[in-house]
């Protein structure tokens, strides 16, 4: 079947099997490898991308279900070579170790901060409950999210 959708701002039209999962479409058809497949069972969040601005686990979405939508992956966050504030905060606060969970963590954070601009630490921890870090680097991840929120609110003043 033919699917038309927008990926990181670029309009695409591709012939896909109905059973093609969005994460496989992004990685194998679009060549975007940021979204990782960790558990493949909707648990770990490594495959998190934005669908019309909201976080979803792309291992549990059909490409066909994303037709007509805007998909954003970690590759689509930076603009003009500048890291997105959430990416910059993860780097500054050492919010990653091996980096496997990081694209998913970053995308989940972008979605979380869009819904709640000034989360408490507790709200950050609950807001990221769908993302697991196998290196268990949660403290720095939470610090990075809080730093990104603070940077955002300074920016919008």
């Amino acid at each position: 079947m033919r699917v038309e959708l927008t990926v990181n701002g670029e309009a695409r039209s591709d012939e896909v099997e109905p059973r093609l999962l969005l994460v496989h479409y992004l990685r194998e058809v679009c060549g975007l490898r940021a979204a990782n497949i960790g558990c493949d069972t909707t648990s770990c969040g490594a495959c998190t991308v934005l669908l019309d601005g909201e976080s979803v686990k792309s291992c549990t979405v059909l490409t066909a279900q994303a037709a007509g939508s805007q998909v954003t992956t970690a590759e689509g966050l930076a603009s003009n070579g500048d890291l997105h504030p959430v990416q910059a905060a993860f780097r500054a606060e050492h919010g990653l170790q091996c980096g496997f969970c990081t694209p998913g963590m970053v995308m989940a954070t972008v979605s979380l901060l869009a819904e709640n601009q000034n989360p408490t630490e507790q709200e950050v921890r609950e807001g990221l409950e769908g993302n697991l870090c196998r290196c268990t680097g949660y403290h720095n991840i939470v610090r990075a999210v809080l730093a990104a929120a603070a940077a955002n609110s300074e920016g919008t003043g």
Partner: protein
Amino acid sequence: MIPAQFDYVAASSIAQALELLAEHGEDAKVLAGGHSLLPMMKLRLAAPEVLVDITGVPGLRGIMQDGDEIVIGATTRHADVASSSLIRSDAPLLGHAASLVGDPQIRHRGTIGGSIAHADPAADLPMAIIALGARLELTGPDGTRMVAADDFFTGYFETALAECELLTAIRVPRRPDEPWGYQKFVRRANDWAIVGVAATGGRIALANMGPTPLRATAAEKSLAAGNDPYQAAELAAEGTSPASDIHADPDYRRHLARVLTARALTGQR
């Protein structure tokens, strides 16, 4: 994991969805958020030949007030139920239950209708709608019928829905001032209840205490007879048949049901 092959149709109306279901019978499955169905298809526990996606059907999504009831369209997502000010004020138990389903990503996809139609006895929303005394609107080729939440869950993952019927709306009584309690016992984030209890308006609903979500009728009767919540909660596991799994054996589940019912009846959440 990759599902078996299927044809995908995005239905554009209720009538078209019903026609496809009638045409393909048990080879077809309704697709809503896909957050129960796709995991099952990936594990090849389900292999429908046709998926009828109803999320683009106009009029099936949204929350509105209709007299003494809130009407929630079947494809309304958990995130929208959880953040609705109407639900938070007039049926707060339901908003709370929706906010506890899985994690944010799951709540951005999963729908109230999908959760209820899936009928997992451990799920949050089936228990919540039983506690609230909701009514379900089912639409088939011959029109629409209403079924009480109490009568909807007929067996393990089985419901009153006929093969060629859709769950189209959930009608929840508006009770802004009614006290309520909600208890979900879990060991891990983003998990289903090992045992769950929802209580409001003299009704007590249990999750994961048998093949269907069910009411703790003995405890309800005790409460109605004027006993205090702790005495009533002692009867919460009467008549239940909880399963045994890696999380808990039946005795432990009965114990949890009693403890959690006491907490729910005293308004804890």
